[in-house]
């Protein structure tokens, strides 16, 4: 092998290294750029959401909150806080808590659920799904079961 051949091979190797570096740099620029276009695609929403003000609910009071885009209703019962899906299992109307009767009433087709979400009367075919309520210090969190 001649000296010239040896030099050319070394330069070729350096060229190859520069190309590799350029590729890595290019990817380093492109990948974050593409990810920048889909920023919200990662982690489709929190699985557990903090419900501000739930800790201050008086017995019998309720509040409507959002859990992963779904309406939930948090109620303070004597036994503590409870949370249910606020969508009636019949046609999806939002139910309301009636403190005097300790029931959830659906205004659309008069479906009635008890304080545990069970169907009392009307057309709803299934109970209101119950959500998990967790209290950490003074903060209240609600998550889909």
């Amino acid at each position, binding site marked *: 092998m001649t000296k010239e051949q040896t030099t050319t091979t070394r330069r070729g190797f350096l060229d190859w290294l520069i190309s590799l570096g350029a590729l890595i740099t290019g990817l380093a620029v492109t990948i974050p750029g593409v990810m920048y276009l889909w920023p*919200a*695609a990662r982690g489709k*929403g929190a699985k557990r959401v903090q419900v501000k003000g739930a800790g201050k609910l008086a017995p019998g009071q309720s509040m409507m909150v959002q859990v992963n885009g779904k309406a939930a209703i948090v109620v303070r019962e004597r036994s503590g806080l409870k949370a249910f899906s*606020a969508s009636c299992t019949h046609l999806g109307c939002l139910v309301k808590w009636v403190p005097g009767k300790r029931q959830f009433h659906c*205004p659309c087709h008069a479906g009635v659920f008890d304080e545990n979400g069970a169907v009392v009367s009307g057309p709803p*075919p299934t109970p209101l799904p119950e959500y998990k309520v967790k209290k950490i210090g003074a903060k209240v969190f609600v998550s889909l079961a």
Partner: protein
Amino acid sequence: MSCATCHADKAGQLAASVHKTLHCQECHGGPASYGLSAEEAKRYRADHHALPGKSGSARFDHGAGFKGKPSRRDVPAFCGDCHADVERMNPYGLHTDQLVRYRTSVHGKTLFEKGDDRVAVCTDCHGSHDVLSSHDSASKTYPLNVPDTCAHCHANKKLMGSFGLPSEIVDEYRHSVHGRLLLEQHDTGAPTCATCHGNHAAAPPGFGAVGAVCGRCHPHVEENYLASIHASQEGFDGCIQCHGGGEGHHRHFIQRITVPAGRMIHRYAELLRSVPDPTPEQITAAIHPQPRRIIDQAMSTCTECHDEPDEDESIPKLFKELDRIARGERHFVKTAHRLDVISQGVLLVEDQQFQFEEAKTHLIALAPVQHRLDPAAVDKEAAKLDQVCDEVNGGLDHLEHGLQWRYRSLIPIWAFAVIFAGLLYAKYRRLDREYVEPAPANETPGNHS
């Protein structure tokens, strides 16, 4: 020998029923077992249906206290022994007023007051040894099976004829909007016979005023109807005046009337494009080329009273209401579709989904407002739906605008990267061209000497 030795079929049914913990003698009396020899048991098993005078064999003596099978007239009291006993039913959390309520029903009154035992008693609807929970799909009282259970008597032409009742009502129900929901779509939330008529107290209070029954599931409709001019019209038969399918008992063929109305709205909307303020005559001509045929079709009920649709001013009013409702519904559907499409993509639309939950409530409240016969009320309710849809669309516009901004702002970033890379490459080429091959290494001093 136990009861099951001879009555294996009944024992099998009982073991699979809600009464599986009961023993035969708890209902039928008699001893828990019989001291029969194998030979005697075999003889009775072979001929256990034999009655005196029929086959000549002696009837099996079930012992002291045996009550046997109750007569139809005695069935309610027989079941009520336990089911009307508060102490006994408490552990199961069951109501104990069924017997009292049954006595107030048409069935109970006919049985107890007239002594006619052809009416339904407990076992006709619940079974006897095979009583199952109403949540069990095999139960006679499971919602999907209720029409068949009632049809057992109410579709019996001979039996119904003897009471002067029609036998087509269950069939009419099966083809009604409620029947199709229940039996074709298996929507167990749809009303069965018992939802309107009651179960143990069949025919609930106020059944004569059908609106009182319909309003239990359709409160929006009832509220609006009661505020309308129709409610104060003498002889107007409430909900079934328009939604029922005939006279008297034949009004179980309850239908929506909005489906044919939807077709008419479409024609009305087409008319509005060329005639912004049409006359009643133009409307009737547009929605149906032969106005009198409307009487036989979609508007048959309206035209019973509004017999001159070509001249009646209330007809365009009605169509304006229906048109407004249709526009509100289209707004809802378009927004729902847009929200669905966007939620499948890269944007987080939880806030908008949450907002849109409220729209469903407004949507379901909108159509019933037409029963008020007041376009202003329809406008007001439709505006609520529009507002929610507009807010949701506004939120989606904002999110999509933000995404577009992200796309656009990436163009200069990438342009910069490409140009910079080009510049580096040009620099490299220049350096490469200017590169001078180093001279070969000088010979060592020793070589020149």
